[in-house]
């Protein structure tokens, strides 16, 4: 098991380095001079040159890459061009909103997927199954930001149950914050939940046809006990894969949905940074989001081995 984790850890580090290089190179290759952007079109050549030197942009690319990465390892992300404050300060506040939102959404979508998927599988080809699968096909097709708008229309404007947007801040109390994140989380979880529900259903149906399920029944386990003790764990393996893939979709979904609800998370931060041409913020936030995606895949890989003992043996 430890060899397995070590191997995966090495892959993780390699992928992270690769991703940071890709981001750096993209920022490097594509045209646009940050100094010019900060100073505006009226800037003289001397002013631009001075600022370029101040930002360290005149140094060779490998050196700048190293400065960026070594800074990151010490928790330093540089200074925002637009706000003149450390990037980390901006990012930290946003992280405390985006990560809880992403976690809430993924939990909601897994609950949704298990309930719908298991119900549909248990009522295979009956009216309930057909209706739920029709709905899930619909759920996959709905853009999350539109769903967010519809939720605002219904729950905030018509029923006035939830705030239409904004985020009170964690020091205002846990409960109000969760309430503020609920509608965004639902709009993100519907789409991902619909996808996962379809996978859960087909996976459970497939496992039910396995010989070992018949063995479990022949031992005297009830239908229900068989489902929980023998079917579910096997059926979860493909669900886990897709959950990992969907988590990255969900993270980028937060970028969009945060803007619908005016929630000051990473998504709002990065969009503002784009409008301000604050490339250093964009660079760091994109790396952060990419890191979260990569980390999720790492965790999913480890979880695999926990769920499926065959994989462990394969790698050792």
């Amino acid at each position, binding site marked *: 098991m430890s060899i397995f984790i070590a191997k995966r850890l090495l892959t993780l580090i390699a992928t992270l380095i690769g991703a940071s290089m890709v981001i750096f190179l993209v920022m490097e290759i594509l045209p646009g001079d940050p100094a010019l952007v900060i100073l505006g079109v009226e800037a003289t050549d001397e002013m631009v040159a001075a600022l370029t030197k101040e930002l360290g942009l005149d140094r060779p690319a490998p050196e700048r890459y190293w400065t960026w990465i070594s800074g990151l390892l010490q928790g330093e992300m540089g200074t925002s061009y637009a706000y003149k404050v450390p990037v980390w300060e901006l990012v930290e506040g946003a992280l405390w909103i985006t990560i809880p939102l992403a976690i809430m959404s993924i939990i909601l979508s897994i609950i949704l997927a298990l309930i719908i998927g298991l119900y549909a599988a248990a009522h295979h080809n009956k009216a309930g199954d057909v209706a739920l699968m029709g709905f899930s096909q619909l759920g996959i097709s709905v853009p999350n930001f539109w769903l967010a708008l519809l939720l605002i229309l219904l729950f905030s404007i018509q029923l006035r149950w939830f705030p239409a947007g904004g985020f009170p801040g964690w020091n205002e109390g846990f409960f109000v914050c969760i309430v503020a994140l609920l509608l965004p989380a639902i709009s993100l979880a519907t789409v991902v939940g619909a996808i996962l529900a379809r996978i859960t259903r087909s996976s459970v149906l497939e496992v039910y046809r*396995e*010989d*070992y399920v*018949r*063995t*479990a*029944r*022949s*031992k*005297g*386990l*009830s*239908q229900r006990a068989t489902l929980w*003790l*023998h079917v579910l*764990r*096997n059926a979860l393996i493909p669900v886990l894969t897709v959950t990992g893939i969907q988590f990255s979709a969900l993270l980028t979904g937060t970028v969009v949905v945060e803007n619908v609800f005016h929630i000051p998370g990473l998504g709002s931060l990065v969009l503002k940074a784009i409008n301000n041409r604050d490339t250093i913020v964009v660079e760091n936030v994109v790396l952060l989001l990419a890191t979260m995606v990569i980390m999720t895949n790492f965790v999913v890989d480890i979880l695999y081995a926990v*769920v*499926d*003992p*065959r994989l462990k*043996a394969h790698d050792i």
Partner: protein
Amino acid sequence: MTLLDVQDLTITLATAEGPARAVRDLSFSLERGETLGIVGESGCGKSMTALALMSLLPERSNTEGKILLESEDLLRFSEKDLCNIRGNRMAMIFQEPMTSLNPVHTIGHQVMEPLRLHKGLDKDAAHAEALRLLDRVGIPNPKARIRNYPHQLSGGQRQRVMIALALSCGPDILIADEPTTALDVTIQDQILELIQNLVSEDGMALILISHDLGVISENTDKVLVMYGGSAVETGRTDKIFGELTHPYTLGLFAAMPKLGMGRNARLATIPGVVPDLMNLPAGCTFFDRCPLASDHCRDASPPVHVLNPDHAVACHNIDDARGKKSEELYL
């Protein structure tokens, strides 16, 4: 009291093309300590019969008749009561040891499961009992093996684990559905011998299902030859093999390799294929493949002739069939 008494068992499966009668009017009985062999080609209803005894047929099926376990009809049992029977008083071993064990649980966990369920043993007691069982079925070094996952075991070892699992609660009846078909020839005999020994040590009844007449003749007290969902020849093993009578049984015998046959000898085959369960003929199901078939075979169900108290044959042309040798009918 008779341990198991099956009366007029009829199984109808709902398929996409319509109802299929997998088993028709099957009756047999089994005493404690007795061994019954059910033999026939694949698709003749053997496995369906076994699953019906365990009440594990697919949902889209209908079972009629009676399955009396010590005079209680299992077909009238609630699902909850059936769960108390399965794995406890009746247990089953399946054909595919490679896929019959759950890949995500250790073999120890899977052997302990029925012990905890039916015997109410706590974890330690179940563990100790599982060790004893694994040892008994011939798993070497059970203390280490008990923590293994199925994929770490060979096919023969997995089938031994399946046997340990089936025997864990000391059932009255063990059903073994082609337990050696998927195994290497060298291991087949070991597994059959193991089953045979364990069954006689514990005094349980065994239903051994096989397509192999040789396996049946060596391991059973009674035989039921099935074709197209119904019994064509039944009786005591020694009586039947003393006088193979039904043309189908003779065909099975002709198709069996025999010792000293010589490598160039051709095995006989029964022409044709097993009947389509969707469109069974009105009369004898073996009609279209039978070398002795006559017109009334097609139209009427064959009558059962009791040759002696321990041997019965369902055939219209019983007089023709009697005394025929297999090589006279099949070449």
